[in-house]
């Protein structure tokens, strides 16, 4: 008898098959796309919740609690936890599972750690691909946890339908939150560690900041104003309220808004993947790395080198005026 294919094993709910599919996504293995193609088009049924915030805010602990709460509602949960790769060695120490160990042997939960592999590692692409894999495996909910806040992480989190930004007292005031672009990305603002002094103050600051934004220049009467939820992931207090707000955002999005948002996300994913594959083709397979260093070595100025390289593929297009198209 023929061995069942990976896509068959995936549909049957075999976790090892899902794990392998995610590895293929991480490594840019062509079998990833083949397998998804084999599975065919399917309606998006997993809800993707992104969890971001500064290091130590309690993201992993919150993810663990959200998963526990979702399991009491008989929802299956796929968790993708991203930790940073070392820019020096390229290695990574992935420790998010430590806070999720109660979920490890739950048959309705799948947890995968992912290293960010640096800016050129295509983490945004791999994270979206991994979410697609988890969805293909039939999980109801996907929790996507990013590394600490930064521009690249917003990129990752843009793969989610609902974005939670987790903050905690003692790590800067509400103005910090206004600066960092947190309000723009957040669908739900979570003030974690509610038992610590300053939690109420932070929540008030955030509510004010949301209000200023909602009534200021960026005003959209139809828009979604991010609610502020105070909870304690460490003790499990008010986790159900966080879920209720996710659910509210979900019903607000439902219909045309969701269609549009997902279309935009798909387009972004295609662009990212194209850019990644082109960059790989040029720098690795066509030897641009060596070409560029040789030109620099010969005393050419950086922008000269850029023009030489770019016009070596766009030269003809430029002359034909296609560039502006």
């Amino acid at each position, binding site marked *: 008898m023929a061995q069942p294919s990976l896509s068959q094993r995936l549909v049957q709910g075999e976790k090892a098959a899902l794990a392998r599919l995610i590895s293929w996504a991480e*490594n840019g293995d062509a079998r990833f796309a083949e397998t998804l193609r084999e599975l065919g088009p399917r309606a998006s049924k997993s809800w993707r919740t992104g969890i971001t915030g500064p290091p130590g805010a309690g993201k992993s602990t919150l993810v663990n609690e959200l998963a526990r709460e979702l399991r009491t509602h008989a929802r299956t949960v796929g968790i993708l936890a991203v930790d940073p790769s070392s820019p020096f*060695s390229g*290695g*990574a120490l*992935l420790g998010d599972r*430590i806070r999720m160990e109660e979920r490890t042997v739950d048959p309705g939960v799948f947890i995968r750690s992912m290293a960010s*592999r640096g800016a050129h590692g295509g983490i945004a692409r791999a994270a979206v691909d991994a979410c697609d894999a988890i969805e293909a495996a039939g999980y109801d909910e996907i929790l996507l946890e990013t590394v600490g806040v930064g521009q690249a992480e917003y990129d990752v989190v843009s793969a989610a339908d609902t974005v939670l930004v987790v903050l905690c007292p003692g790590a800067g005031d509400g103005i910090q939150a206004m600066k960092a672009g947190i309000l723009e990305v957040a669908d739900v603002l979570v003030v974690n560690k509610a038992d610590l002094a300053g939690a109420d103050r932070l929540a008030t600051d955030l509510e004010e900041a949301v209000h200023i934004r909602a009534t200021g220049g960026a005003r959209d009467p139809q828009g979604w104003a991010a609610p502020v939820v105070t909870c304690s992931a460490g003790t499990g207090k008010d986790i159900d309220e966080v879920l209720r707000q996710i659910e509210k955002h979900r019903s607000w999005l439902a219909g045309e808004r969701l269609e549009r948002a997902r279309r935009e996300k798909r387009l972004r994913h295609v662009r990212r993947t194209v850019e990644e594959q082109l960059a790989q083709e040029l720098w690795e397979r066509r030897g641009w790395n060596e070409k560029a260093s040789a030109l620099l070595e010969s005393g050419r100025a950086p922008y000269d080198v850029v023009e030489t390289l770019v016009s070596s593929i766009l030269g003809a297009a430029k002359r034909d005026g296609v560039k502006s198209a």
Partner: protein
Amino acid sequence: MSTRKIRVLIAKPGLDGHDRGAKTVASVLRDHGMEVIYTGLHQTPEMIAETAVQEDVDVVGLSILSGAHMSLFPRVRAELEKRGLTDALLVGGGIIPDEDAKKLESEGYAKLFGPGTHTEEIAKYIETTMNARWAKQGASR
């Protein structure tokens, strides 16, 4: 992106609160460019095997100082096999007498590292073994 990284699970089975060694090894392996999943203390063999499957690791490294290695190590291996994970490189370290190490190495564990082992030796062993494997079967799987 098309470069595959060696993925390693470092786990501490059973009732054993000493994780300094496991953390040290985890850091050293990371510094050698590996992706290391560390799961913390007090893991059951089932938890370790489940994690190894979901993380699709190439290497499972167990650290133990409690003396229970002769009962826990074979159980971890059995749980891995039960889940079809038969090709992972199994290594271990801690307070393990030579005769126990020899026995475990005859029962599916590739290598046991005793006290005094230089961390570089562990990293080099894993690197060399995995690179040889990938050279033989191709880096894709």
